[in-house]
């Protein structure tokens, strides 16, 4: 409940994401990575997100994570064998560590990205514009976010149209199914291009890019808590980096 009361600026959230995901990239130590993951989950909760729900969603990828560990293990040279089949090392301790590192990084990056889902898309765009990102680029982001569900519906419509012609996608062999999916591409591209053109005309007819800059009805203002969180992020970043260097 307290998390919902703290209303952070999207730029602060962006900074939190950058801090956490940068740490995920730099750090190799497993226990430190685990700490960063806990930190990221705490940040999700702090910004009003649901870390448990996020973990439940990530459970769907469990099989992929197991495969990643095996693949990492097979292609990692060195280390002590943990599981061997006919003198071939399937799992080595070093491979296992690398695989776990990769999984933890994946978890951290997804968790940190979840911080941004707690911000309103409009505020994110405004934040980007106020960070001096060209407004054309910021609008590209808006439109991409806005049109994703429309594109998903479009794909579903085309799939339904294919199935209404008597093609049961669930029953046909995999190769034939893939070939059928290829038929989706042309109508999809055509539809997307037409939508994009109509939208760009509608935007230009509303004076888009009339001037190199534009004003905003609503502007974001950083509050005390934003500066505090940014300072905290700096501190945590430095602390974890120092710890990582010491452990090395």
């Amino acid at each position, binding site marked *: 409940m307290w998390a919902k009361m703290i209303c952070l600026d999207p730029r602060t959230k962006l900074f939190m994401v950058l801090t956490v995901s940068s740490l995920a990239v730099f750090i190799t130590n497993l226990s430190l990575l685990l700490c960063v993951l806990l930190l990221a989950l705490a940040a999700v909760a702090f910004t009003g997100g649901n870390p448990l729900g996020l973990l439940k969603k990530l459970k769907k990828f469990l099989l992929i994570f197991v495969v990643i560990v095996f693949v990492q293990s097979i292609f990692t040279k060195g280390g002590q064998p943990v599981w061997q089949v006919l003198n071939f090392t399937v799992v080595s301790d070093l491979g296992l560590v690398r695989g776990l590192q990769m999984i933890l990084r994946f978890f951290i990056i997804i968790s940190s990205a979840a911080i941004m889902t707690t911000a309103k898309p409009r505020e994110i765009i405004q934040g980007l514009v106020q960070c001096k990102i060209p407004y054309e680029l910021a609008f590209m982001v808006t439109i991409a976010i806005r049109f994703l569900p429309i594109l998903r519906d479009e794909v579903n419509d085309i799939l339904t149209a294919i199935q209404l012609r008597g093609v049961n996608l669930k029953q046909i062999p995999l190769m034939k199914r893939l070939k059928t999916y290829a038929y989706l591409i042309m109508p999809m591209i055509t539809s997307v291009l037409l939508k994009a053109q109509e939208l760009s005309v509608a935007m230009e*007819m509303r004076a*888009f890019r009339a001037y190199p800059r534009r004003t905003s009805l609503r502007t974001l203002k950083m509050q005390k808590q934003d500066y505090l969180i940014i300072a905290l992020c700096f501190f945590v970043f430095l602390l974890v980096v120092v710890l990582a260097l010491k452990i090395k």
Partner: protein
Amino acid sequence: MNPIEVKNLSFQYEKNTRKILDNLELTVAAGEIVAIVGLSGIGKSTLCYCLSGIIPHVYGGIMTGHVYLNGRDTRDLTLPQIATTLGIVFQNPDNQLFSFTVEDEVAFGPENLCLPPEEIECRVTDALEKVGMLKFRHANPQQLSGGQRQLIALASVLSLQPEILIFDEAMSQIDRRGKKMILEMMLKLKAEGRTIVMIEHDLENLFVADRVLVLKDGRLAPFAGKLS
């Protein structure tokens, strides 16, 4: 000076041998509602694009003749310049709305004109009040009905305060209630002195027009009551 004057306008799409508009003439007086009807594929939307400067600024093709908006040739104006004189509401509201709230959508045009926030605020409130959608100010446009979305598209054009409005089959994808809302809105705008060109295929909607013209063989003629 008339808000819209079209002189000897001809247009032919690339890779097409037929002229879709052929020496077309049109004059629309200030405060007038002119409806243009015609069969599908006859060039009604093309005429709309020519009137609004989308042709030749966006879509290519062979265009001869002139379209004057308040005495200025659309060729000599940029689209953002045209936008402050003429607003266009397209057929499909989904391809015109892209913001996450109604307020943002309506503020988009004035923000592009670099107006101060106080002025933008006034224009947004005015435009939403005019179309009767002020209570939906913070709603997501995607969660509104087709008619309401089209009203938001109209409000987002009105916030630029254009004196000419073009409705390109703006009522073709909305229900009866939505159509009623848009038609009532057109009459209100006419009362304010705005000039309106409406492209229509539904003859039931023509009662709001002062003049009805039919587009046939690339030219406009008075409408006699039947399309064929």
